């Protein structure tokens, strides 16, 4: 199992994501200017402030050569995980539905949040117990998930809403408390909280490991 973590100028959590992925497989960094995905089995688009998040979070990074390859990889069914800024990039790139808007509280906010696993039967959550709650840190200023109402209905009906915030902890004002969604094919997943920062009890919780373990199972074609 080989993870590739895309590194943009302004990425912050790419090394953390690489270290987290390395707990369940091999993990390499992929330079934003290179089209070559080095035969990775799964791609992580990491958190941070790619291109300073200037203009609009994720707006510029999505056009990098590496992202062009990631889009092809996703279209071919490859596993792609977008974390925080990576979620924003995947939405901007049209790989995921909806958009992320400035937090309702108008501030960068750090908080350890509880997430309900709404759909434990996806390529990214299959290692989770049914109805499991994950304690994972969130930290961002552009995390308010938005999609038109009818699209939200479809996403929920189709089980594409994968993670929800505890309603009392939805500081960014995401519609329907949505914290993470997949695409229709189920091979692309984005979430605002940072699973790569919840992989070691010493520095917080280990709940985030479920996401990476799930991807490893999926890449090996194991279906829980």
């Amino acid at each position, binding site marked *: 199992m080989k993870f590739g973590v895309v590194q943009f*100028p302004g990425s*912050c959590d790419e090394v953390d994501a690489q270290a987290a992925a390395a707990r369940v497989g091999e993990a390499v960094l992929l330079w934003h200017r290179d089209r070559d995905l080095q035969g990775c089995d799964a791609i992580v688009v990491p958190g941070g402030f790619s291109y300073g998040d200037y203009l609009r979070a994720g707006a510029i990074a999505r056009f990098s050569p590496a992202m062009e390859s990631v889009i092809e990889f996703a279209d071919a069914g490859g596993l792609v995980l977008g974390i925080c800024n990576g979620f924003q990039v995947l939405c901007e790139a049209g790989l995921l539905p909806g958009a992320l808007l400035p937090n309702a509280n108008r501030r*960068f906010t750090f908080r350890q949040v509880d997430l309900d696993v709404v759909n434990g039967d996806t390529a990214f959550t299959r290692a989770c117990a049914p109805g499991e709650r994950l304690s994972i840190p969130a930290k961002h200023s552009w995390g308010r998930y938005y999609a038109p109402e009818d699209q939200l209905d479809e996403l929920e009906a189709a089980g594409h809403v994968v993670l929800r915030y505890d309603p009392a902890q939805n500081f960014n004002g995401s519609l329907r408390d949505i914290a993470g969604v997949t695409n229709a094919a189920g091979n692309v997943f984005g979430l605002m909280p940072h699973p790569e920062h919840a992989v070691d009890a*010493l520095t917080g919780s280990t709940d985030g490991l479920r996401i990476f373990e799930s991807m490893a199972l999926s890449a090996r074609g194991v279906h829980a």
Partner: protein
Amino acid sequence: MPEAAAPPTVDEAVALGLTRDEYALILDKLGRAPNQVELAMFSLLWSEHCAYKHSKKLLRTLPTEGEHVLVGPGENAGVVDAGNGLACAFKVESHNHPSAVEPFQGAATGVGGILRDIFALGARPVAILDSLRFGEPATSERSRYLLDGAVRGIGHYGNSIGVPTIGGEVYFEEPYEQNCLVNAMALGLAERDKLVLSAAVGIGNQIVLYGASTGRDGIGGASVLASAELGDADEDKRPTVQVGDPFEESKLVECSLQLLEQGLIVALQDLGAAGITSSASEMASKGGVGIDLHVDRVPLREADMEPFEIMVSESQERMLCVVEPGRVDEVIALTDRWEVHGTVVGEVTDSGHMRIFDGGTLVGDMPVAALVDDCPIYDLAPEKPSEPIYAPPAATLAPGASMRVALLELISSPNIASRRPLFDQYDPIVQSRTVRRPEECDAAVLVLPGGGGLAASIDGNGRRVAADPYWGTVGVVLECASNLACAGAEPLGTTNNLNFGNPEKPHIAWQLTEAVRGIGDACRALEAPIIGGNVSLYNEGAAAGPIYPTPVIGMVGRLPDAERAGRLGFTQEGDAIAIAGHFHPSLAASELAKLRGEALPDGLPEVDIAAVRAAQEAIREGVREGLLSSAHDIAEGGFAVAVAECCLEGGIGATLDLGPSDDPWTHLFGEGPGGFVVSGHPTAIAQLAERVSLDVFGVVGGDDLRLTIAGDEVDVPLAELHDAHDALRRFFP
């Protein structure tokens, strides 16, 4: 040398901040009148900020050597040995004046500046701490505006560049109303043998400038030198506010570290205050060489900048490095990869002079020694003021208030209430090292490769220093070390930022002299030498008067095992609660005295520094051995507030009986160094009692804080405590 226009007059020199005598000395050093470019450069390097004219003699009295010190004062930051072949660089720096003008950008560029000092040594920045001072937020709209802006600015820069902000401190006092303080401390990690210094070496080596292009940032001061081309009409072309670009700096960090990793450069230096002038001159001075600079090669953000403007520009996010001629192409290629395009702007010479060229013409030529070493250093004329210089604070606690009311007022007072509404806006975990986040422990803790840990704390208490500059400062240094002890760490080294008023005034000179004496004595006694710092003087207004004297102390310590890092909050129902240490509480200059509106006392009780150190060692060992469930040092608000904080952080109550007391208020709310609230299994506490004086007062449990003293009972439900503690939230709508 070719002299175009007539040289600037002595009056222009004075307008640039030089004295007439200093100007005469420059004439003497050059053997002629300095031209426009030269005068601009002298005025910067001979400024208080660069030359430490009024503090250098005092700083020389500080202890700067110790077994853990790898690099002491004099470099961009000091460096200590973090073990396992790792070195930790750290330093605190102030950005007070810019933050008072525009708090968001002022604080943001302050963080950017201190981070550059860290990676200029080849260390990857791994943590930020901030130290803030404002006027009273409840009554001052300006203070709320400055607070909000500074916090947003620090978060903006630190969060965006991916360096965690793991700790800090903030206090609110009337004397900071006009002159707020924004100090930022940063830590960096490097492999010991990969450190790089800033001395320019190797005659013929090339000087490469990389990072942001150069604009007219921060040259407002020098604008008296502007020639006709850019007259008053274009004043606004000289922004008074510098805008930070954390995105640019994040590329600078990665590029700089790769340049070093690949061994492509021989020296590295950030461009801070005084821009390329001080960076190049200090590199030349440290290397005992000369440097030729070609201003026409410097990439500009704006057309037609004059040579002197380029030399003094304070544009942010720029670095200077020294490169062997054969390596220049590789260096440029790497800077291009990171989009921080490097340019060769000069070379190292054996002339011993700074020579500035514009399109081949020599436009400035000065001995490096004259620029860097020959600035006069002044003696202070310290004198203890005959009467108080600070007005008493406004009383906010009703006379005759009960101890219960006093406790809640203290817990909700701006100086004690939870800082969560601030640090919620900072990313404390990026880079995956953070073992103790803000409020989990008195010091922040980072885990290192191999499982050891680093603890960091930053502290200051202007009110106590104002009451007694010597013992107040000693107390600040001791509190910093106590915070480390609660984490289980012993100090490796100390940094400091001296925030004071106008040192040319005898009573400010006295505050400064006494404070530095206090730092020196305390750091010697703790064997926590000073490895760097910064000085910010003239923090006073004509009407407002001086700020409280505010030495800010930053300390970094080491723990053998990060898994054993201490915690502040009670954890275990049934644990015994004890007050331990060498603690002699007093209400003098305490938070309670402030709430009561009492004037500052003249002097604080003396402290037995050695006894406090011994207590810190006992607590530290107890934490390391895992004897203690929690440890928390007693600071603002005294014992009662410390216990309340342990309850709030642990989410569990406590019941204590302090027995009879001739002075219950002092026992509950008195302050002073050397006291700790610890909790643990009764047998463990008994073990600790064999090493440090200790009294068991109660047990952990329940949903209330119940304190009985001299027959009076104070009973507060945790929920009520919690709401009171959240008082700062309302200042961040």
